[in-house]
C-alpha cells in the first residue's frame, strides 16, 4: 500500500493569487494524478503528473491555470493560478501502483477563494 500526504489540508485565498498544493507518497510510484471535487459532486480528473515530462491534461484543464510538477517518483505539486471563486473546491492527489495494486488517494486540500 501507499500513504499519501497532502499539504495544505485547507486554505482560504484571495482572488488573483496562486496556491501550490504538495503531494508526497511514502513509496515510489509510477503514476500520479490530480483531481478536483466540488462539494457533493464526483471527482473530476485534472491531469496525469508524468515524471520527467510535462503533465497530461484532461479536456477543460490547461497548464497555464494548473501547472504541475513531478520532480521524482514520490512527489508532485499542483498550482492553482490566478484564482477566482469558481476554483473553490477540494483538490485530491492520487498515486497509481504497479500491476495488480489499487490506486491510493490523499485526504484532499479544501480550497476557498474569496
Amino acid at each position: 500500500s501507499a500513504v499519501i500526504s497532502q499539504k495544505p489540508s485547507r486554505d482560504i485565498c484571495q482572488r488573483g493569487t496562486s496556491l501550490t498544493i504538495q503531494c508526497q507518497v511514502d513509496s515510489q510510484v509510477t503514476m500520479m494524478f490530480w483531481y478536483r471535487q466540488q462539494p457533493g459532486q464526483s471527482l473530476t480528473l485534472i491531469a496525469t503528473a508524468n515524471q520527467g515530462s510535462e503533465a497530461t491534461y484532461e479536456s477543460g484543464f490547461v497548464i497555464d491555470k494548473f501547472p504541475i510538477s513531478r520532480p521524482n517518483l514520490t512527489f508532485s505539486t499542483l498550482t492553482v493560478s490566478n484564482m477566482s471563486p469558481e476554483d473553490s473546491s477540494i483538490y485530491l492527489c492520487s498515486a497509481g501502483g504497479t500491476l495488480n495494486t489499487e490506486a491510493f488517494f490523499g485526504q484532499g486540500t479544501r480550497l476557498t477563494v474569496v
Partner: protein
Amino acid sequence: LAKTTQPISMDSYEGQEVNITCSHNNIATNDYITWYQQFPSQGPRFIIQGYKTKVTNEVASLFIPADRKSSTLSLPRVSLSDTAVYYCLVGEGMNRDDKIIFGKGTRLHILP
C-alpha cells in the same frame, strides 16, 4: 473506458445487507470492475475488484453475472459508519497506473 450507471442514492438501516448494482453494458473483454468508497472529507478508498463470478474480501462481496454487463456490490450487515459514496469503475486490466475516471457514484445513507 466503459460507461457505468448506478443509483444516485440509497437508504438502508443498520444491520441490513445492502446491495448496490452497477450497469456497464459496454464492458470490454479486458475490463475489470472496481469499487471505491469515499467518506466525507476523505479521498476515495479501494474496496474490491473483480473480473467475473464472485469476489469476497473482509469488507464486501462483488457479484458479476456471466454476461458481465452489470455487477452488484454487497455490504453485509451495514453500520452507520458505512454511510459514504460508492463508485463503480470499469477499466482495462488491473494495472492501476491507468487513470481513473469517476462516475457520479451512489450516495449510501445508513439510518439507525
